[in-house]
């Protein structure tokens, strides 16, 4: 099975290469069609294999491919954890490839997008499979660079070029941090296979350094605050199906790296790191969604909302670390199951929302919410699926987003058992932060859906929008269906995720409540249960009673102008806009945090020039984190300028001093 997956990766690479060659003389549409169809087939095969692997409960399989460094052939290993993430990659890959296939006739992206697309998918497939540091880092870089080229698709825009530069720098920092992490893990003996790292005996200090490096390296790729700044710039800049992959899938691959190192490669991680991850995760969730609710660009909103969801998953991982360090293996497992389930769910609904938004953007030509509106009449299927995605991401029952957050809250409610006081006090605060993030996410997606699809069109293009191609609609409907099915039957996923977590934690994470697969009943000693399916059936049953209302009531319905308190204005500009919709939230939350300021410029009486209203936001992360860092780098660069203009004697003196210094250090250490 492992060789089959490696084979599909080879096929993906070949597709990219073939596309590069064929593109020179064949017509573009056919070539891209073959590339996307081939990528979809390869990813589909992978996803199907992974489902088979997870359901059968097969144990790990290994392979060594004689490529790469001569003394260390590239090792690959397939186990349950890798399989879960490969399933995410495969599912996201097949659906976004199908979107690319259906959209290829109308695309305005440069030709290279189709060539890098399969490479990107191949890179993301290899990361979870890698079983040594070299193949891991190579796949990781392939994933970063391939996506970087696709971010540059609209390189003629100034903002895109800026996004690409920021992305490149952050990706480089991330990879360096990952390198340092693996280097520390390998230790002086230099065992770069994961097998050797698992057995290595590293000191607590080195372990702490590894955690820090991984959190920086993989956290920057996942978009953890304050390393998220590139994400809302880069994800929206890429073509739609690539944005969906970057937000829905690539961030999950980054989380995979965190989980792999923290729960598999490292023998033990201290509770302090759990506390740090809880705090960072909670902050990431709230800040991410607060940024999201204030944005005007539909794809930027979705990108920031990815930051929020990463925060939620990071909180779950942090909770798992805290429980594991305190000896509660089962509760640690429950937290990790909740996190993994949320990762799967997020990959589904974020892909759905990005692809739906992409359909609207290509139908209207606008990413700015202030130009959209009323699209539900022209694009009914897109609207219905986007509504399901919005409800899922807003954690409304009985959809999948709620199911995973419910599990996470059940795990959080066990906080009092943690022995350390700092953790005890942190858990309720983190719970409040998560609850706040969930509620704000609901507000955010009411706004996105309401402004985009409801109301009156705010531009002629929105009024004349056309429903997307049938192929795209099929993709959207499949994703929306998946969100509903995973919501009403969460145990379907949990029953294959929990054995994987059990092997990591050594204890079964979900208690068997004895009620069967319809119920989530995670803890044996508490009688907390939830059943999405029964809830849905009961609500549907009660809704069917509504026909009584219809029979008793007057059935007549007529259409007229909106009433609007007696003075409707036909101008669609009198509607609430995206900015005015978020004004109350901006006033309540962002006044101090983001120093949101509203400036109204009113002309003098008699003056006919328009009044102006500007909102200025200030991003504390840029101000307090990035700017000082750039300043320090600039200062160091300035100072080291002097080193370029020295005489050869001075250079030799420096080398001699360095030699002496190193020898002294060696002497002291020995």
């Amino acid at each position, binding site marked *: 099975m492992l060789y089959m997956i490696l084979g599909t990766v080879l096929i993906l690479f070949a597709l990219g290469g073939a596309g590069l060659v064929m593109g020179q003389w064949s017509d573009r549409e056919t070539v891209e069609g073959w590339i996307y169809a081939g990528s979809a087939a390869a990813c589909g095969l992978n996803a199907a294999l992974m489902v088979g692997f997870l359901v059968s409960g097969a144990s790990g399989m290994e392979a060594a491919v004689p490529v790469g460094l001569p003394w260390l052939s590239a090792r690959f290993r397939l186990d349950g954890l890798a399989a879960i993430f490969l399933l995410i990659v495969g599912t996201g890959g097949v659906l976004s490839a199908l979107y690319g296939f259906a959209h290829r006739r109308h695309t305005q992206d440069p030709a290279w997008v189709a060539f890098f697309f399969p490479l990107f998918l191949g890179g993301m497939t290899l990361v979870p499979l890698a079983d040594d540091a070299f193949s891991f880092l190579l796949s990781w870089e392939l994933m970063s660079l391939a996506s970087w080229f696709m971010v540059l698709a609209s390189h003629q825009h100034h903002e895109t070029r800026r996004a690409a530069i920021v992305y490149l720098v952050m990706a480089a920092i991330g990879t360096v941090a990952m390198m340092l992490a693996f280097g520390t893990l390998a230790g002086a003996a230099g065992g770069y296979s994961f097998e050797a790292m698992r057995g290595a005996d590293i000191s607590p200090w080195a372990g702490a350094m590894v955690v820090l490096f991984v959190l920086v390296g993989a956290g920057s790729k996942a978009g953890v605050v304050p390393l998220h700044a590139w994400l809302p710039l880069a994800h929206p800049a890429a073509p739609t199906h690539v944005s969906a992959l970057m937000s829905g899938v690539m961030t999950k691959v980054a989380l995979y790296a965190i989980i792999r190192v923290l729960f598999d490669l490292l023998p033990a991680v201290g509770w302090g790191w759990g506390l740090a991850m809880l705090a960072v995760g909670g902050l990431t969730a709230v800040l991410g969604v607060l940024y999201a609710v204030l944005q005007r660009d539909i794809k930027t909103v979705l990108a920031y909302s990815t930051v929020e969801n990463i925060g939620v998953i990071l909180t779950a991982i942090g909770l798992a670390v805290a429980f594991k360090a305190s000896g509660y293996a089962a509760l640690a497992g429950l937290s990790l199951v909740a996190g993994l389930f949320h990762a799967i769910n997020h990959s589904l609904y974020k892909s759905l929302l990005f692809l739906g938004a992409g359909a609207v953007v290509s139908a209207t030509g606008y990413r700015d919410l202030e130009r959209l509106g009323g699209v539900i009449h022209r694009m009914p299927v897109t609207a219905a699926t986007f509504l399901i995605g919005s409800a899922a991401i807003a954690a409304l029952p009985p959809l999948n987003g709620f199911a995973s957050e419910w599990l996470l809250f059940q795990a959080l409610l066990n906080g*009092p058992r943690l022995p350390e006081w700092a953790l005890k006090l942190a858990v309720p605060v983190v719970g409040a932060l998560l609850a706040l993030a969930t509620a704000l996410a609901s507000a955010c997606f009411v706004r996105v859906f309401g402004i985009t699809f409801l109301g009156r069109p705010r531009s002629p293009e929105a009024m004349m929008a056309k429903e997307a191609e049938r192929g795209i609609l099929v993709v959207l409907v499949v994703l929306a269906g998946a969100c509903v099915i995973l919501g009403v039957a969460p145990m379907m996923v949990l029953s294959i995720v929990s054995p994987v977590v059990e092997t990591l934690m050594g204890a079964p994470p979900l208690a068997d409540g004895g009620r069967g697969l319809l119920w989530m009943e995670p803890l044996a000693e508490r009688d907390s249960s939830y059943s999405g399916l029964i809830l849905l059936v009961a609500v549907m049953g009660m809704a069917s009673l509504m026909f009584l209302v219809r029979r008793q009531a*007057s059935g007549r*319905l007529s259409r007229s102008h909106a009433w609007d308190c007696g003075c409707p204005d036909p101008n669609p500009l009198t509607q609430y806009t995206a900015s005015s919709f978020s004004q109350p939230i901006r006033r309540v939350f962002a006044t101090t945090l983001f120093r949101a300021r509203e400036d109204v410029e009113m002309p003098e009486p008699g003056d006919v020039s328009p009044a102006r209203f500007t909102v200025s936001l200030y991003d504390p992360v840029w101000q307090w984190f990035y700017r000082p860092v750039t300043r320090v780098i600039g200062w160091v660069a300035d100072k080291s300028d002097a080193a370029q203009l020295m005489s050869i004697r001075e250079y030799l003196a420096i080398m001699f001093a360095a030699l002496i210094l190193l020898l002294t250090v060696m002497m002291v250490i020995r």
Partner: protein
Amino acid sequence: MTVSGLLSVGLLAQIVQAILVLALAPALTGLVRLLKARLQGRRGASLVQPYRDLACLLRKDVVIAENASWLFQAIPYIVFTMIWFAAVLVPTFTTVLLLGPTADLIALVAFLGSVRFFMALAGMDTGTSFGGLGASREVMIGSLAEPAVLMVIFTVALVAHSTSLIDVAEYLTGTDVGIRVSLLMALLAMVMVAIAENARIPVDNPTTHLELTMVHEAMILEYSGRHLALIEAAAMVKLLLYISLILCMFVPFGIGTRADGFAGIGLGLVVYLGKLMGGAVILAVFESSIAKMRVFRVGEFLGGALLLGVLAMIYLYISWAV
């Protein structure tokens, strides 16, 4: 009672409760209005008036805006069903309810969150300035109220060792919890949230149509006929639901449990009616003695509720440790 006996009693109680909440909700709203009128020196309309209003609305034709979508027409049914279902889940006079394990307190809160989600969408659908205004204020209120109520629930769940509504009610009736400061704080936070969620004074005014202050009314401005009837009925059931929820979480005493048998459940019904009336009196007195606050003060009000909720939880942790 045997298992099958328990199941059939549960089913029966469930159906009785489903009908009871629908039948009582307009009377409760009528009672609050009547009491408020008396407190203000008016005679007030009779208790039957809300029923008449609903029947009147049902008879009227529906007029909707030209550009309203299918969602606008579906939302009254969605909202009414969801609120009704939520009200059916909360133990009122007995804890022997068939649907009890289906959804716990967290699911219930999320369910009420869905109601808000759809109501706000309804407000935005016609593309009028008032609808957007109501929706935007409603989501701001919700973004603070929802975490506050979750904190309250966490506090209660930690005391009762379960997030299940039935377990919470049975634990508090069966165990001598004593007076806990954290529960008092949670109760206060819950009442503040309930006031905001039900569009009562001082957060919102259920009888106003003044643009500066309205929230809930602004969202439903475009509804008429049977749609409006459903939404009004949903608002009435929601008031009953919140009072029942507070009763169930903080003063469940007298509720009929598994151990009580039929007599206990019958007694529970009487006690429940008494408590409901008490709740109406408190609400009417409170509403008559306080002034409406500015919309942007609501953030502070609900932020206070959220803080109280967090404090209640932290206090609970500390009181356990000491």
